[in-house]
């Protein structure tokens, strides 16, 4: 404990926690939509192509964080223009991902410096972020959250009920592209904590655990953010104390949250049960209570 308090005095620790805070909030909100829209594969592709972007920027001697963002955003635009429809989308994602990752390998091969930075992008670097990177991450996070707040309601409509949303004038197609861009920013952020390869632990698991806890959309978003915060900040602190990589703890904590939500807490929530039929007008499905 004393050790932890002492560590909190270091600037690099403060940087990590500040960045982790924003990253977790963004990831928590976005992951609910990723789960509801069934976009795990797209998240994975954005992350891998973020790696390509970062590798390219490292090669050019530029900021890898910025490279990540350029990589994910370019991929989002590409996927958005080529295949917004669910079925076509996975195919387009696969096609783009394979090519982009090939480019990433090329950039890494061409780079003659140390490969540490590339390794860090694959597995997470949060305790190594500079003050400048923290500011950049804060800015990206703030813009992403503002964008999410602006589209939250119509995006929810377009996600759960696209036919009626379209009939009510919601620009369903445009929102799909906007959400891809929001995902691009969230992925670029979350990679700082857990890296490209473990991205789903922050962009799927919190949302997947939250939907096992409550049927209320607002509360589900709040739970998802809470879980993402617990995993991120908890992971950073545990890593500082033990010296093991952050991503080990983040993935373990988020998996534990999921198991707990799915098998322990969720089954005890009365809200999640099917209500007892009140009248003859609600037949079928026997009550489980």
């Amino acid at each position, binding site marked *: 404990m004393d050790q932890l308090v002492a560590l909190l005095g270091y600037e690099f620790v403060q940087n990590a926690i500040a960045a982790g805070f924003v990253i977790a909030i963004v990831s928590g909100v976005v992951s*609910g939509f990723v789960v*509801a829209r069934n976009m795990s594969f797209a998240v994975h592709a954005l992350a891998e192509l973020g790696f390509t972007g970062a590798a390219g920027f490292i090669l050019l001697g530029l900021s890898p964080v910025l490279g990540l963002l350029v990589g994910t955003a370019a991929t989002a635009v590409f996927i958005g223009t080529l295949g917004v429809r669910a079925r076509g989308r996975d195919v387009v994602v696969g096609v783009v991902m394979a090519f982009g990752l090939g480019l990433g390998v090329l950039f890494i091969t061409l780079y003659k410096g140390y490969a540490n930075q590339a390794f860090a992008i694959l597995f997470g670097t949060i305790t190594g972020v500079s003050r400048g990177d923290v500011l950049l991450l804060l800015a990206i996070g703030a813009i992403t959250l503002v964008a999410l*707040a*602006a*589209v*939250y*309601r*119509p995006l*929810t*409509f377009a996600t*759960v*009920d696209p*036919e*009626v*949303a*379209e*009939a*009510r*004038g*919601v620009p369903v197609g445009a929102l799909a592209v906007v959400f891809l861009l929001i995902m691009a920013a969230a992925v670029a952020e979350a990679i700082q904590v857990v890296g490209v390869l473990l991205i789903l632990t922050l962009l799927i698991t919190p949302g997947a655990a*939250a*939907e*096992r806890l*409550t*049927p*209320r*959309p607002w*509360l*589900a978003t709040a739970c998802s953010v809470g879980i993402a915060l617990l995993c991120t900040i908890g992971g950073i602190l545990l890593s500082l104390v033990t010296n093991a990589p952050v991503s080990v703890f983040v993935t373990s904590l988020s998996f534990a949250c999921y198991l707990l939500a799915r098998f322990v807490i969720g089954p005890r929530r009365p*809200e*999640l*049960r*099917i*209500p007892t*039929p*009140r*009248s003859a*007008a*609600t*037949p*079928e*499905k026997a009550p489980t209570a």
Partner: protein
Amino acid sequence: MENRPAVRFERVTLSYGARSIWSDLSLDIAAGSFVAILGPNGSGKTSLLRAILGLVAPSDGHIEVLGHAPHRGDAGIGYVPQHSTFDADLPFRGRDLVQLGLDGHRWGIGWPDATSRARVDRVLASVDAEGYADAPIGRLSGGEQQRLRIAQALVGDPQIILCDEPLANLDLRYQQTITALIASWRERTGGTVLFVTHDVNPVLGLVDQVLFVVSGRWAAGTPDEVLTSERMSELYRSHVDVVRVHGRIVVVGESTESGFNIEEPHHVPVAVEPH
């Protein structure tokens, strides 16, 4: 109000690419009427609704909805889409679905306020769905989801509701329940109902006007005018008998090279009220 039709089609042709879905449709749908839209699968019934919603533009002619050109997001129209399912674990309740019908198209976060919550409660009560409005929507039965869909379409106080096969996948009891809900809404508000269906039976007692579309051709009028052997044979361009059996009308056609096959579900068993 009396003079202005709820929906007016003037020589409307709708095409999908080079293929014309239906052509030269002229029809006035009187405010407060109940119109059943019938026809085989793929005859463009859903496209007709999409044209009224302003989601597709006619290639020729023009459409007037509530006195103006169709436009996306028309608050005067409620829409009940064709059967769609919700994921069982989606963190979303019936109440939230109805709330979206009220303000889901607006930007922003949309904190629910007391006024809109009261309005949602009222419409949930009117369709008798309070008992399961707070349960996860993906775990409800098809009939329960359909009631919530009706509530969602009605919550914005529309003047017209468009229902696309609202009785599909429902058992007989729920077909009657949903039909009764729509009928009582029309009674209460004087609203107009456009009802796409492959089976006119459950709503025949309510129908003022039938629009029957086959391969781009159409016939409109009262059920007794349209559902006759002569009109149906003309429409299908094939020998068709409209048979009255046990107070029902069954449309039966011979099998021809044009693909007219009585086994197809589009051969609507049609009943008329017993005389």
